[in-house]
């Protein structure tokens, strides 16, 4: 066997065991009536699980919540991350210090982030609510109007730093010369940004967007830490839905079908994003 195959053997073996096999198992599971509560009565049901999930209002609701969440969070993170990167890049003093602090949130465990905000924003004991109250503002952060938005904002707090990291590196790597040429050419800040900075940064933006969007689909911890899906089912995301279906109601078959459909949705979105941004060309 050629060395190149020998070198990938360990990886292939481990990944097959922990990914391929479970994937296949999940696929099989999605065609079974598999309930943990009736483990002796497992039997194949064909497409029944898919039919059930696809028409289940709870699933559709979770899908809608997730898409809203992904779109809202990633858009805000993109805008904030890019603005912050442009600001930090122009810092004359303490740049390394400011950058280190602004990046900190992305490294800490999401459950801690969720819980910190759960209590900071709590309407009874929350510091934020307390002082907003003194200003005469009463925001019910986890109430029916706000809950999903609040979870989006928590995600923005934790993951804008990721965008910042990507864009700062991207900006630093841009050649200096075109910007000097633009100064001599008489371009103002807006023209320079829209015609030179932004187009040159585009490949980095696309990659950052894709990574963040895919990651945002997996949102679970914030919901688990704050609302547990409530009020009603307003903040049930797909991951939370699968968690409930599989581990609260023990309906493994339906949970598997929902997971397969999640992957399908993600794939469609990724392909669309890649097509849209023509990532292949920009990688050149």
């Amino acid at each position: 066997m050629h060395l190149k195959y020998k070198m990938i053997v360990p990886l292939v073996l481990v990944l097959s065991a922990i990914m391929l096999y479970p994937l296949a198992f999940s696929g099989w599971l999605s065609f079974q009536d598999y309930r943990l509560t009736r483990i002796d009565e497992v039997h194949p049901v064909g497409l029944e699980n898919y039919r059930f999930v696809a028409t289940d209002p709870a699933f559709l609701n979770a899908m809608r919540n997730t898409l809203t969440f992904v779109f809202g969070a990633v858009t805000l993170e993109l805008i904030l991350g890019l603005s912050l990167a442009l600001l930090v890049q122009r810092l004359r003093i303490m740049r390394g210090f400011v950058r280190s602090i602004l990046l900190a949130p992305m490294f800490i465990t999401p459950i801690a982030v969720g819980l910190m905000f759960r209590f900071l924003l709590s309407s009874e004991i929350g510091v934020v609510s307390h002082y907003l109250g003194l200003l005469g503002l009463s925001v019910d952060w986890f109430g029916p109007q706000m809950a999903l938005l609040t979870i989006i904002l928590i995600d923005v707090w934790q993951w804008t730093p990721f965008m910042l990291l990507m864009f700062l590196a991207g900006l630093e790597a841009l050649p200096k010369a075109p910007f000097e040429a633009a100064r001599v050419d008489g371009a103002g800040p807006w023209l320079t940004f829209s015609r030179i900075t932004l187009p040159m940064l585009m490949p980095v933006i696309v990659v950052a967007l894709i990574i963040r969007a895919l990651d945002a689909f997996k949102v679970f911890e914030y919901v688990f830490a704050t609302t547990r899906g409530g009020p009603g089912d307003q903040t049930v995301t797909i991951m939370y839905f699968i968690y409930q279906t599989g581990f609260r109601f023990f309906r493994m078959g339906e949970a598997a079908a929902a997971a397969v459909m999640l992957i399908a949705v993600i794939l469609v979105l990724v392909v669309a994003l890649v097509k849209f941004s023509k990532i292949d060309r920009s990688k050149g």
Partner: protein
Amino acid sequence: MFDYPNLGARVAATIAIILALFLVLFPFVWVFLESIKPPELGARPDVWVFTPSWANWQEVAFESDVPLNIANSFFVAAVTVLISLLCGAPAAYAFSRFRGFSGARYGILGAEMMPPAILILPFFLLLYHLQLIDSRIGVIAAHLTFVLPVVTWFLIGFFDEVPKDLESQAMIDGFTRFQAFYLVILPAVRPGLAAAAVFGFVLSWNDLFYALLLTGSESRTLPVAIAGFWTFRGIEMGKMAVAILIAIIPVLILSHSIQKHLIRGIGGGAVKY
């Protein structure tokens, strides 16, 4: 602070940065104060000045399972990273250097992006049948599903940057290709290995989802324990704050050390800076 030509822009930018710093730092400061608040002040949002009390820290250290949780989290993360490096490094080298693996990069990326939702069900059922729920082995296996691809992806990027002439030279000097890999190339990417290891460690250390469903009282990791302070016995804010600090401080220190390399790793050779 800024070098914008006009004063208005400088002032606005300074305010924006200070606001951002405040928004980022405030939760950290709050959680720290919460951890040293005397327990009887518990949930008072309006008290900022008090005599610090180490009661919460002492309780967490001596009367809770948190030390065990820390040990579990550390063990799981360390073993996961070790296996990931052992399997990932040679494979990443092969993907970076040999022909015929162009699809493999996307495979690794795909694995990295795989939602845990689809893997957790089989993992749970299998471990359940093997009676390995509440074992650290189960969590390690689950964490490998995302740490191994990430580490491999990181290393591909780092190997791509090592000039090919380096191993050619080693081979001319009389080493086999594999010797060239571990005697010459691996040392050359040592910063990359360190960055990948730290990043993998952080990912494993931070995971809640798998650990929540696959561990029990013996194998519980720190994130699950943190969540537990709210679920059981009402809210134990002070102790939760201590546990949160214990979970985030080491990670902040570790990741600070690899900030420089992180970006190259995440890009994995897909983004040319």
